[in-house]
């Protein structure tokens, strides 16, 4: 990647460009775009659980003994460990932030938060959330409406919708 002589670039810059730089500390312009979401989702699904969850579980088993190494493995496993799903749920909930005006990477986190709940429901028939089925449905519908939702996750969400819809 070509390097940047930032001093030379600054001295060539217009007032508009300088203003954007000057305001960087106030707000970070949207560094990630909506078009980045499918790549971000793919990236986190293939990321080792170790990277994000080790600090929370200490020496505990992160699922490697049953072949779970990545977040994708966690969602695909037929019997994912409940504790691990709960850990992942809390992690993604924190990254998702509040509902209003989520940035693209926060939307990815929110979708993954929903996926952990849906996985527990579909694979283990267990609820790991305090949300009622009725409260959960809009979230699942939102996930299903995202064009960047991968096929395997879509299947899981559809199954969850059936279950939640019946009980709601």
């Amino acid at each position, binding site marked *: 990647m070509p390097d940047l002589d*930032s001093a030379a670039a*600054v001295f060539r810059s*217009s*007032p508009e460009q300088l203003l954007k730089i000057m305001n*960087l500390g106030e707000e970070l312009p949207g*560094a*990630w*775009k909506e078009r*980045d979401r499918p790549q971000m989702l793919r990236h986190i699904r293939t*990321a080792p659980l170790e990277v994000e969850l080790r600090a929370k579980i200490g020496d505990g088993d992160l699922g490697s003994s049953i072949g779970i190494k990545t977040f994708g493995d966690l969602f695909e496993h037929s019997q994912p460990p409940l504790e691990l799903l709960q850990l992942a749920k809390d992690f993604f909930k924190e990254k998702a932030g509040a509902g209003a005006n989520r940035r693209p990477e926060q939307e990815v986190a929110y979708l993954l938060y929903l996926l952990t709940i849906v996985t527990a429901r579909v694979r283990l028939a267990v609820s790991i959330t305090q949300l009622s089925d009725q409260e959960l449905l809009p979230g699942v519908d939102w996930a299903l409406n995202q064009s960047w939702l991968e096929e395997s996750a879509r299947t899981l969400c559809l199954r969850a919708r059936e279950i939640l819809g019946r009980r709601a």
Partner: protein
Amino acid sequence: MMGDAGMEILPLAAAASSAWPLTDWSGVRKAAQAVGKDSERLEFLIRKYQKPLKLHLTCTFELSDQAAEELLHDFAQDKILKEGWLAKANRERGRFRNFLKSSLANFVRDRLEPKANVPVSLESLEFDIPAEERAAEIVDLIWIQTILADTLARVEQDCRRIGKPQIWEVFRLRILQPIFEGADVPDYESLVRDLGIKTPFQAQNLLGTAKRIFQRRLNRVIGEYEKSGAAAKLELEDLRRFLARAAGEKQ
């Protein structure tokens, strides 16, 4: 290298990029060191901002580059040795930047004052107000460019010094280059692969860290000449307003 009171004296990248020949400042620096800490700070500031200050002189007095440089050098030496000037600067209301410019202009006016018995033409007393204002805007623009060039250089240096060059690389590729060069933002996948970033949250953390380092450094660069926190904050707002006005006028 560290100056007194922990003030980092970093290489003056911005000034060094000037095409103008640099006067030998070693004598001025020695005088400043002999006088003390405040004078060293003044000498550092005048050297650092010599590009906009020289431009201020060439535009205001129609001087050659060489003449402007020599006068700036003499001004620095004069003020460094003059007891109480910097204290007066600190006490004056308004921006240190403007105080420095007006003090410099007054110094040069005194130097250029016509000798007695030499007739002064009326035309020479006419000031082109719009041209002066335009010159003042250009000077302030270069002053801001000097601040930002220094800030970004320090951000890059900080990232490398703490062993986290990834912070600078993400900042450069996703934020700076698109602003400076109108470059397409590299796609997420190639960025994380090339920089070995493991998760999107790690990538976001890197950018958040870059932002904090940038803000800290920007405040520090401004704090070098506007000593109090409140004054530095006002100066930053002032500079932003200037850029917003200049950007609006261009549209």
